[in-house]
């Protein structure tokens, strides 16, 4: 169980920590969730520029970059490429039970319906980004980058997030009485 991934948690953790240090030295720490707003702003600006410019929040993330991609957005595109490339190269070494779009754990608890799984995934995603934008960051920007910078806000975010996620996970996977 301990060592059944392509690289171990130790290697991945050390590599991620070093990557964060490199990013902080070169440009700024890692962050992902802001780029969902930037993407929304780009799409909204392409479809309905007046609406996008009148929306205070979208405009905040659209104007400084002239509604064009910046460093953070390129980082997200890089994540897609890096993920796609390594997934192609190392697919055969990925544990069998982690392949495919229907997690075994979910199927055992909630059944075979992919509609059910995808609906939950969609609404989960909605809560994720609503929460991340309200709190000002996500797992990368707040927890990993933020705590590494000793930011008080990120310690609070980390504790509350893990607390809520553990309670929700325990509720979803409670043993039926």
């Amino acid at each position: 169980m301990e060592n059944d991934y392509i690289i171990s948690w130790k290697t991945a953790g050390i590599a991620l920590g070093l990557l964060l240090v490199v990013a902080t030295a070169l440009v700024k720490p890692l962050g992902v969730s802001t780029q969902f707003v930037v993407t929304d702003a780009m799409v909204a600006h392409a479809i309905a520029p007046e609406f996008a410019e009148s929306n205070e929040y979208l405009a905040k993330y659209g104007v400084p970059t002239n509604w064009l991609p910046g460093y953070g957005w390129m980082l997200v595109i890089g994540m897609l490429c890096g993920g796609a490339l390594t997934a192609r190269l190392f697919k055969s070494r990925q544990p069998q039970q982690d392949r495919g779009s229907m997690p075994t754990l979910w199927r055992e608890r909630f059944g075979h319906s992919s509609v059910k799984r995808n609906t939950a995934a969609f609404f989960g995603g909605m809560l994720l980004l609503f929460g991340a934008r309200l709190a000002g960051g996500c797992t990368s920007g707040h927890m990993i980058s933020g705590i590494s910078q000793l930011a008080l806000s990120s310690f609070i975010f980390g504790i509350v997030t893990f607390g809520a996620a553990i309670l929700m996970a325990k509720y979803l996977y409670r043993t039926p009485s």
Partner: protein
Amino acid sequence: METLITGFFIGCAFGAILYLGGATSYRRIMGTLLLKDMWIIKLMATAIGVGTLGIYVLDIGNLAHFSIKPVYVWGIVLGGAIFGIGWAISGYCPGTCLVATAEGKKDALFTLLGALSGAFIFSLLFPTIEALLIENANFGALTLEHLIGVQGIYLAIPLSAVLLFVAFFGLKDRYQ
């Protein structure tokens, strides 16, 4: 232009590490949230342990480009709770849903689409939310360094040591 290219390559490495290290595995993520499989939390604690030390070593030479998020208590607590619930429901976080989508997982693509909608809904409600939850009890961008009044590196060394110790020796998987 150079910054954009740097961003792209840092992103590539980030995506590769998350995939190779199993951060896109629903089994690993839910295992951690159910407090049975410590893989993900050990990975995160190691990353933060290395990151904290590295960033504050950079800081000694004034080489760190900090990005500290402000402390607005209500927004962070409520946002963190909503984020945590979404994390447990979908099994992904914003970064891992991107990588898992690239990997070809359809449920991750649905999380990604949900995330774009969630960010959009937030942008529509922003003026009200800002007045209520972000401008109230907002103490600005505080770090433990400011709060305790000790140079960062002296806090980074013990924090880093504790996190690495917990990751390497403290946390054990618990399967019945």
